């Protein structure tokens, strides 16, 4: 069988010929292809045609000094084919690919926001992450940008609280705009949603991201590789292990470092522990959202032992600081095995109970079945990831397709549900938790002996790498470029929520206002990842405060 990346390279070579400037295939399932200016659309559409169920993972923009390079990371059957195209720095313009693949909309907006590249033909090229008071023409990810540019109006920044634009508020229509956020009684994180509602039906929704934009990608460029592991860990407090695993893998493949087998297994154990705690967090808050506070309390009670386990294995409850470049930082003590098996055994028993609750409880099914439909074709077109994809019946899991750590040796099932609704997405998570328990058991039993880390030089050779990890919320992509110093030249993070939030519009549109919480929770949004680099005060200008009650339980509080 010919490898996917080879097939891709062959087809591009055949069709584009001289328009390909450079092809690099550094490692299995990765290829970097530089095309002439203006040919990126052809390359992307060729790949989309050739590979069924392919999509775009993200777009990275890199300031090379004289030019800006755009990397289109295409996910094709477990491989990532990166199409590169360069634009001039003075007039950074390039044609959009959103007509070929609608899932690229947010990625193009992100590059526009942070690097100032104009995508011609993009339907809605607006700011995505930076604040409204950010000066025009100041692009933080360009190399000559300095924070001094924006420091002037730092303090005393006062922007009016979220207001609704008055469109659609005239007397002739019954459509009403409801702004929810950024401080709101529901989500843990600040994010703003503008819902257009007609009576009880949601007509349209527009999320505003960026309230958690901290600028981590820029910060990562000024720290060394090793320091970055700690910064990257703090992108997201929930899926932090996935982030560090992904980043370490990227650096390890640049430096061609082979980590010992024991480290691979230990990483697998901690990543899966992290997945269990993340899924249980979601299932608990889902209970709260759907009106079952007792379920929330139950799930959280059963989640605590997982965190205890995490503490026993890594030394910390939430942010474990476990991964490092070249392996892990702590060995698993053999005397813990018994405890791990005991706690997991108890959790497995409880999971059987929760599965029955989610499956059989009539109210639970009424609240979630048929709510927030995301058809298979839409899921592929919008390039969603993780449990959202699998809830739409698409069998895609990076642990199988693009195996990393010890997943090529550990047996496990990929859970899919065909129902395409909120219920399916929740069920995927319930069953995945059970799978995770089995993975940990297997990994603990088959833990290879030997060292758990290798020494790694501070300096990394010149090179670039795309690393992917199946985080609890879906596909997580890190892109790292090194120029041969102790500092990375560019670190790009694409979190799963950014891929999934694009489908929010689709799943709440034409649904009822009361179903919004159930739909949103099934996406398991996590905005600190998404914004890296968003709670609710509801300002509405009509007496619709009863709606806020609907929002109240959107997530978690």
């Amino acid at each position, binding site marked *: 069988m010919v490898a996917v990346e080879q097939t891709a390279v062959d087809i591009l070579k055949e069709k584009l010929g001289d328009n390909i400037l450079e092809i690099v295939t550094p490692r299995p399932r990765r290829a970097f292809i530089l095309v002439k200016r203006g040919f990126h659309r052809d390359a992307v559409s060729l790949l989309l045609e050739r590979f069924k169920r392919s999509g775009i993972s993200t777009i990275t923009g890199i300031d090379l000094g004289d030019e800006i390079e755009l990397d289109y990371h295409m996910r094709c059957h477990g491989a990532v084919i990166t199409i590169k195209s360069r634009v001039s720095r003075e007039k950074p313009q390039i044609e959009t690919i959103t007509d070929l693949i609608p899932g690229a909309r947010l990625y193009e907006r992100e590059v526009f926001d942070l690097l100032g590249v104009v995508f011609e033909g993009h339907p809605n090229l607006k700011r995505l992450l930076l604040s409204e008071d950010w000066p025009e023409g100041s692009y933080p990810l360009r190399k000559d940008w300095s*924070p001094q540019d924006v420091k002037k109006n730092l303090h005393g920044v006062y922007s009016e609280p979220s207001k609704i634009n008055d469109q659609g508020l005239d007397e002739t229509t019954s459509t009403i705009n409801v702004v929810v956020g*950024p401080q709101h009684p529901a989500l843990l994180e600040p994010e703003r949603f503008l819902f257009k509602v007609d009576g009880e039906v949601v007509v349209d929704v527009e999320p505003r991201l960026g309230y958690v934009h901290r600028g981590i990608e820029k910060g990562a460029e000024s*720290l060394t590789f090793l320091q970055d592991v700690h910064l990257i860990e*703090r*992108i997201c407090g*929930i899926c932090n292990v996935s982030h560090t695993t992904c980043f370490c893998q990227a650096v390890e493949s640049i430096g061609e470092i082979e980590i010992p087998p024991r480290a691979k297994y230990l990483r697998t154990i901690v990543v899966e522990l992290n997945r269990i705690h993340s899924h249980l967090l979601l299932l608990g808050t889902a209970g709260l959202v759907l009106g079952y506070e007792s379920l929330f309390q139950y799930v959280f009670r059963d989640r605590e032992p997982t965190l205890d386990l995490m503490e026993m294995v890594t030394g910390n409850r939430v942010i474990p600081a476990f991964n490092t470049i070249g392996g892990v930082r702590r060995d698993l003590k053999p005397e813990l095995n018994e405890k791990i098996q005991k706690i997991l055994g108890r959790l497995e028993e409880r999971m059987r109970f929760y599965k029955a609750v989610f499956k059989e409880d009539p109210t639970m099914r009424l609240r979630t079945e048929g709510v927030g439909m995301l058809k298979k074709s839409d899921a592929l077109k919008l390039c969603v990831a993780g449990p959202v994809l699998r809830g739409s019946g698409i069998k895609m899991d990076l642990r199988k397709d693009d195996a990393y750590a010890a997943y090529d040796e550990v047996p496990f099932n990929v859970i899919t549900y065909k129902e395409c609704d909120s219920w399916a997405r929740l069920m995927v998570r319930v069953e995945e938790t059970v799978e995770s328990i089995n993975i940990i058991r297997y990994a603990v039993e088959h833990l290879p002996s030997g060292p758990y880390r290798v020494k790694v030089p501070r300096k990394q050779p010149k090179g670039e790498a795309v690393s992917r990890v199946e985080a609890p919320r879906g596909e997580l992509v890190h892109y790292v470029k090194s120029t041969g110093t102790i500092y990375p030249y560019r670190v790009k993070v694409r979190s799963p929520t950014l891929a999934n939030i694009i489908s929010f519009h689709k799943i709440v549109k034409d649904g009822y206002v009361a179903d919004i919480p159930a739909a949103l929770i099934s996406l398991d949004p996590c905005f600190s990842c998404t914004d890296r680099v968003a709670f609710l*005060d509801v300002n509405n200008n009509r007496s619709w405060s009863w709606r806020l009650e609907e929002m109240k339980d959107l997530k978690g509080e």
Partner: protein
Amino acid sequence: MAHVSLTKWARLKSPWILHFNTGGCNACDIEFLVLLTPRYDIERFGVLLKPSPRQADALIVTGPVTRQIASRLKVIYEQMPSPKFVIAVGACACSGMYANMQCYGALGGVDKFIPVDVYVPGCPPRPEAILYGVIKLLKKMKAVKA
């Protein structure tokens, strides 16, 4: 027992708390969330989580203050009725961790924008630590007149 006003008595017995994330990574938030659940059960101290700043006695802030959220934080603080108290939870809220790591979006700790009464350090602090912070605040509330 000295004379205590009715509102103060009510506030001490059941402080209402508003939680606000100013751009943190969620780690502190989930550790705060578990306070509501059986193992820690913050309701023992009468603490209730409230969705609106207008009803809140204390504000729990997690995360470094980002550029986008700074003005909102001020608005929320101003909307709270006096006397008001603020607990900064986590290394970011205490000192603006990301801001010290060249991340342009983060502006610094919470105390750069609003007065803070109790600092709970840690990345993230353990739930017990947050609980301890809340109890310290209760003691501080006792000393406040009105």
